[in-house]
């Protein structure tokens, strides 16, 4: 008897929470698809329009911002995957002097992430003349302690016998890395890739500081520049731009949501 009541209470909480959670986003959708004068007035038969999207698209080079973000994400991801693999491999497979010390040095970055060091990293970047470049945005993130840590944990679970069997067959260090270690860590690569992509898709403060021109601005900075208030701000335009720029990731998630959760599980990030 009380189980049935419990279930109803549980369901109510669930639906209310989900509805409240969705509200701000739905509001933004409403604003984006209606003319500006309905952005704070809810009339059920308010005319729908796509003109906010076309106007926002024409007002700022969002396609370019997208391209920049994609270049940034790919650069960081490729570098991360390669460099973190190399370091993790060294820590797991070899012994060398200072290994423990070096590992704790690496782990320092988990704590002091590059965002916190914006002041000095900015000075470094301007000394070497890489401000206002995409590689400049990427540089502090090319090696990731988190990636090294995850891969090291995974590589440690690779049975030594597999490694030794491969050696018996005459495989060199690189072949062993490629044929033994990397395949076993595939779910980790996927999960880490998702985390890295989402991180750089989000990243704002650092790119804001180091970029000046639209040619290198990622979407986040482009969006904030677009929504900057100096004179009358049109909510519908800003919301259209917001939705437009975030649509690709949302659509990707809708398509891949099952695999997404499954990969997190398999990677053991839980």
């Amino acid at each position: 008897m009380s189980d049935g009541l419990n279930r109803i209470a549980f369901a109510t909480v669930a639906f209310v929470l989900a509805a409240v959670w969705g509200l701000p986003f739905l509001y933004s959708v409403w604003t984006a698809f209606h003319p500006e004068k309905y952005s704070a007035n809810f009339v059920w038969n308010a005319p729908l329009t796509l003109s906010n999207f076309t106007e926002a698209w024409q007002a700022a080079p969002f396609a370019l911002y997208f391209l920049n973000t994609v270049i940034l994400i790919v650069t960081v991801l490729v570098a991360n995957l390669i460099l973190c693999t190399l370091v993790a491999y060294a820590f797991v497979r070899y012994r060398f002097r200072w290994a423990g010390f070096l590992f704790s040095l690496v782990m320092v970055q988990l704590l002091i992430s590059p965002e916190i060091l914006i002041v000095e990293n900015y000075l470094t970047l301007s000394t070497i003349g890489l401000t206002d470049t995409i590689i400049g945005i990427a540089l502090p993130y090319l090696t990731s302690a988190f990636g090294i840590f995850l891969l090291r944990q995974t590589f440690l679970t690779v049975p030594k016998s597999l490694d030794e069997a491969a050696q018996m067959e005459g495989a060199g260090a690189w072949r062993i890395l490629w044929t033994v270690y990397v395949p076993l860590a595939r779910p980790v690569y996927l999960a880490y890739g998702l985390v890295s992509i989402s991180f750089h898709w989000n990243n704002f403060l650092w790119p804001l500081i180091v970029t000046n021109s639209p040619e290198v601005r990622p979407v986040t900075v482009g969006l904030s520049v677009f929504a900057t208030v100096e004179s009358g701000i049109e909510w519908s335009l800003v919301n259209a731009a917001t939705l437009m720029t975030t649509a690709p990731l949302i659509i990707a998630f809708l398509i891949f949501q099952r695999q997404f959760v499954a990969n997190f599980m398999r990677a053991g990030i839980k």
Partner: protein
Amino acid sequence: MNMRLSYGMGFILLFVPCSLLVAFTHYPAFKALLNSFWNNGSSIRPSRFVGARNYEALLEDDKLMQVLSNSFIYAIGTVPLAIALAIGMALLVNSRLPATGLMRLSFFLPTMLPMVAVANIWLFFYAPGIGLASQILNAFGLPSINFLGSTDTSLVSMMVVAVWKEAGLFMIFYLAALQSIPTNLKDAARLEGAGSVRIFFDVVMPLLRPTTIFVAVNALINAFRLVDHIVVMTRGGPNNSSSLLLYYIYEVTFGFRDFAYGATLTVLMVVILGFMAAIQFWVLNRKAHYQ
């Protein structure tokens, strides 16, 4: 048992990644420490060594005291709230209720949006008198709240935005953990007559502990490093009531162009984070002992 690392191989494996790491983590941290002993120069007045003067300024900076207390409240407020909500959401989505797919979407959508986009959306949502939040309050006969324009509510409003954005991501971690709990464990407990609430606290929660630790550490780091919404929504105001430490560093350095004081604040930030890490390490170690 492991092989010795030859110099050549070591160079190939470690040189590039480690030098990048040193160049953008260790070197800047060290450089901040050095720069904190110099004053700020401009083109017409070069900087000079001032000893501990910047640190004296740190102690006298009443705005900094407010910023530190804000950061502390922000972390203490957002981390547990986001975790509790994430667990709740994961349980809901993992239940046999109808429309869990839609629920998952609703919870997870905010995570897909960059913080800047989230801030834009909430800026309009919060707008006093005209935004949706005010309209809902008014519909219930309540007065509008000046969310971002009052010192009483601005920080809390920022915390709500952060929790809204982050809880969904943490939910995914919990969801993964929940789905890996063997069902026979729960069935066994149920056979022994345990209710759902007892099963949750006695069986499920302990199994979620590693997830909670992972999520808590991440949430805590994020509480210090994510200030995008402050930049977009309040710029730390009104009267510094929503300013967080990293935003203050940004304001001092790139707004006031005081790189020396910015470096000093960076040192403070590193020290605080180091201190937090030490506490975490200590707590986790003790926990491990008792298990």
